[in-house]
């Protein structure tokens, strides 16, 4: 009952508008609603689940040539949309992963590979993490060993000459203490 009155109320307020304008407004609002569907036009379903799985893996592995920090799966740029559709086409035609990779590299270069091939120009890229890790381990080992050696290098035993020097120092301290004590005694008297 309540809801009906509410509806009626809306009708009342918009009644002032001419019917044509009202229709146009409704059409506009409907059109705006439809706009949001535009982003979902791309149909990326493949004929078999196995192909879909390969497709999802592949598009995550290639880099969008236009927007360089996104992969093909993430990017909405027209070129990524095109490349995705090409990958779907190639998959449906039965192309292997290597063939798809070759297809993309032939057109856009090694650049599109987020996982580049291991070759002379990419040795640095592939080996750098291992080399840096090794370097880090070496530095740690070096530092730890030096610290150990440093600690053990502190002698626990005194040499003869050191002992003599120590005795001399202790004796000197004793005599100094004695003289100081004598002086105090004399002053107090």
């Amino acid at each position, binding site marked *: 009952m309540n809801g009906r009155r509410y509806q009626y109320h809306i009708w009342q307020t918009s009644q002032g508008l001419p019917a044509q304008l009202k229709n146009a407004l409704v059409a506009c609002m409907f059109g705006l609603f439809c706009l949001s569907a535009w982003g979902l036009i791309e149909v990326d379903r493949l004929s078999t689940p196995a192909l879909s799985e390969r497709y999802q893996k592949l598009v995550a592995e290639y880099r969008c*040539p*236009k927007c*360089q920090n996104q992969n093909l799966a993430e990017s909405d*740029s*027209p*070129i990524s949309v*095109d*490349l995705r559709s*090409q990958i779907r086409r190639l998959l449906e035609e039965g192309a292997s992963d290597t063939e798809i990779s070759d297809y993309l*590299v*032939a*057109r*856009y*270069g*090694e*650049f599109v590979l987020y996982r580049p091939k291991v070759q002379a120009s990419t040795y640095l890229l592939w080996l750098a993490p291992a080399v840096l890790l090794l370097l880090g381990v070496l530095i740690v080992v070096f530092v730890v060993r030096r610290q150990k050696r440093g600690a053990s290098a502190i002698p626990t035993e005194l040499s003869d000459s050191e002992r003599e020097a120590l005795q001399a120092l202790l004796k000197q301290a004793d005599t100094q203490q004695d003289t100081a004590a004598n002086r105090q005694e004399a002053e107090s008297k």
Partner: protein
Amino acid sequence: MDRIKLFIPLMIFVVLAAMLYWGLGRDPNAMPSALISRSVPAFQLPELGQLQLADDGSATALIDEADILDETLFLGHVSLLNVWATWCISCRVEHPYLLDIAESGVRIIGLNYKDEVEPAQQWLAKFGDPYAQTISDPTGGLGLDLGVFGAPETYLVDHLGVIRYKHVGVVDDRVWRTKLQSRYQGLVDALATGAE
């Protein structure tokens, strides 16, 4: 030895600073084309000017078999292949300059990339046509084979149809003088001496 050790942080700093400074000057969008020194991919596409709108205003019909262009278009001349579209704002920016260099005798082939026929024809009628011929590639298939990832892009193609250089972005006076002109002239001169 100990004294040298003191300089290690400074050395690291200098190396790092040099690398970062070098990185500052680099264009992160620069991407070497995979097609340098390779032939223009095979294609069969209509010439834009020969396309006509059908009566229903939608489809485009080709008039003559002879108006289908293919990669032999590039044989015998040194050409620029300019990828453009009416939706591409930078293409509008470089358009007057293309007219200039076309007037100075440079052969430019247009590739109308992922565009509609009618607006493209109107564009050339309105702003002038710098292209010796324009390939119409509405689906972007040739663009994809060429490794185009956004208009405008300009390829330098020699008289054997081999791509020699690619410039991504607007061709203006600076780009022409620093990047394209000498290469273009070199190819033209080589062709002229070879032909004699």
